[in-house]
């Protein structure tokens, strides 16, 4: 890696040196990114889900229906703003704003790109960075729960309250899984600042296959695959997206916590959901997919990781992740609530803990000589292998055929018709067709289909 590219990596010392207009510009950019991502994100989701369901999706307003969300938003603004009589007025008003503020604030520590030069200032493409930036992200997502819970409570009716309760339990449980999967990233990167984590993912190991040196990506998505998978699942749970959209399960809770909301307040909830989706995609990109760094084939080009280009790679990765969110929604049915909770606490959490244990074990034997390493890894692996080999076999018995099941029924069971029962065709079917036929001919000749 040449020093010119290394210099592109911002360190913590590079932050907090900008003039006020640059800071303001960056904040406005991050905010506009969130809003624009919502506008396009809703359109993107509806088009993609439409494609998956073999229908066109919104295609009337603007080119490719791009302005559909804008039109919907404008319409929403002119709707009547209903304040329920039983609502707690102040809390009812503040709940959507809390949601939006928390979702947008998280964007402030997401690195969009390396050091660039704006108006003569050498500055990183990131609003700010602190030594505990990832914790700031966690704090934002945990404060975002308040918006939903308070919205549900303040509405003063049952469905929103149930939705709020569900979401608080859900988001707290999945935050645990999320925080634990970030632990692996901390351990590997040795830092909690987002720009630092991106910088640590720059150097992958060199794979030499047949004489060629292939640079394997240093992405934590590959190094820490279990953490990545769990983190992404927890992200889906944290943003209340399908298949984990239980707080707003329409078949059970009407619209969950936002049942009573209308007009702009409802729009704010929608906004926060989509901003949170984009933010979480950006965070996943930053923590696991190398942030703004170009993926492998592009890195063959020297200037891929400098200047303004990295922003393009970053947006590409974010859009790919948003596509996965939409894909999940288009594919998977909603989980039942108890299954969902069991999945979070009994599957994700134990796997995560074991994985962290294994990872820290591997890291602590890093400095040993190769023989020690072999013993330390080989003996537990061997025990595990033997245990799986000799584990009592619980293969299910072959399923009996229907006839065997019928024969094995005890005497006095409910009587069944014979298995080879031939059902004769109903005499009525032919009659109906014969009667209808002339009517169709008449209708075809002198009347047109409307």
């Amino acid at each position: 890696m040449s020093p010119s590219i290394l210099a592109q990596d911002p360190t913590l010392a590079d932050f907090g040196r900008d003039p006020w207009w640059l800071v303001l510009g960056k904040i406005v950019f991050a905010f506009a990114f969130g809003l624009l991502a919502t506008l396009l994100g809703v359109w993107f989701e509806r088009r993609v889900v439409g494609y998956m369901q073999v229908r066109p999706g919104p295609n009337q307003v603007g080119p490719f229906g791009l302005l559909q969300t804008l039109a919907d938003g404008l319409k929403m603004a002119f709707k009547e703003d209903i304040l329920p009589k039983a609502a707690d007025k102040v809390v009812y008003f503040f709940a959507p704003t809390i949601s939006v503020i928390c979702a947008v604030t998280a964007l402030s520590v997401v690195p969009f790109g390396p050091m660039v030069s704006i108006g003569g200032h050498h500055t990183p493409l990131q609003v700010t960075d602190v030594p505990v930036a990832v914790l700031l992200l966690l704090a934002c997502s945990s404060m975002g729960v308040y918006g939903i819970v308070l919205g549900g409570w303040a509405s003063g009716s049952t469905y929103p309250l149930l939705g709020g309760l569900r979401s608080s339990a859900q988001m707290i449980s999945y935050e645990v899984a999320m925080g634990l999967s970030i632990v692996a990233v901390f351990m590997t990167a040795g830092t909690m600042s987002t720009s630092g984590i991106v910088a640590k993912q720059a150097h992958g190991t060199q794979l030499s296959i047949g004489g060629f040196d292939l640079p394997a990506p240093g992405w934590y998505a590959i190094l820490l695959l279990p953490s990545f998978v769990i983190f992404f699942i927890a992200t889906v749970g944290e943003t209340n997206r399908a298949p984990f959209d239980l707080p707003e399960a329409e078949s059970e809770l009407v619209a969950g916590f936002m049942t009573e909301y209308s007009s702009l307040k409802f729009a704010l909830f929608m906004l926060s959901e989509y901003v949170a989706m984009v933010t979480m995609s950006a965070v996943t990109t930053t923590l696991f997919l190398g942030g703004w760094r170009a993926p492998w084939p592009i890195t063959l080009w020297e200037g891929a990781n400098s200047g303004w280009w990295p922003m393009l790679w970053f947006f590409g990765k974010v859009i790919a992740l948003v596509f996965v969110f939409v894909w999940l929604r288009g594919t998977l049915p909603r989980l039942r609530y108890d299954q969902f909770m069991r999945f979070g606490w009994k599957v994700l959490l134990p796997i995560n803990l074991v994985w962290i244990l294994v990872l820290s074990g591997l890291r602590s034997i890093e400095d040993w000589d190769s023989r020690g390493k072999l013993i330390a890894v080989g003996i537990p692996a061997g025990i595990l292998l033997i245990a799986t080999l000799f584990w009592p076999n619980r293969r299910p018995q072959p399923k009996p055929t229907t006839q065997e099941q019928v024969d094995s029924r005890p005497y006095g069971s409910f009587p069944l018709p014979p298995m080879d029962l031939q059902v004769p065709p109903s005499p009525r079917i032919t009659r109906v067709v014969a009667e209808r036929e002339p009517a169709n001919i008449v209708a075809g000749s002198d009347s047109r289909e409307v």
Partner: protein
Amino acid sequence: MTTSTVLAAAGGVSGGEEVTFWILAPLALIGAIGMVAARNAVHSALWLVLTMLCLGVFYILQAGPFIGMVQIIVYTGAIMMLFLFVLMLVGRDASDSLIETLRGQRVAAILLGLGFAGLVGSAVYNAMDKTTAVGLDQANAEGNVQGIARLLFTKYVFAFELTSALLITAAVGAMVLAHVERRKQDKVDQVSTMKARFAPGNYPGPKPGPGVFATSSSVATPARLPDGQLTERSTPDILPVRELTAQETTLKGTDR
């Protein structure tokens, strides 16, 4: 390297720090007062959230970014959320009734509060009096997070473990108290429910209505089972089964 301008430089008080303090300190106080004064339990919890958030920002201002964030994530995000959860379950109209349920509760509360304040105050005074501050530069020499981690896992590891043992004991105790244990053989899974349903002697479905697949639509005509035999269960028990007399079967002369 570790001190960005967000964090106060150790020693002097910067302008930004002062401005933030004077904005947030009144807010923190208002939150504390509101917490005590609010009639509604959820409002009270929300005021406390405000205070905790302000405290979190204060920690960050005092060059303790880690503890500030942990304050927000753990206390505001998780613990207060659990409080809210319980309060919401209790019901939204759970307002205070200003009737003392325990005699002399207020006096005792004031006395105990004063005593606690005195204890904390004297402890802080003693700690400040006898120790010499080395300054943040030395404490944060290898980074704020690393410094805390080193202390937690070396000097205070026993206290740390003891606290977690206490928490786990509390959690296990809560589970023992709240969890209703059901014996394994009492649990009926879906397969055995179905087996019991289709066992001999138990009718698996809704009873067939009288007259179903029968030669007559009379309610007194028994239905036929799938294999063709008649079932007596389809006719209501209260129907008297009797033969009609000749008088009853003759025409009444109304069809003329």
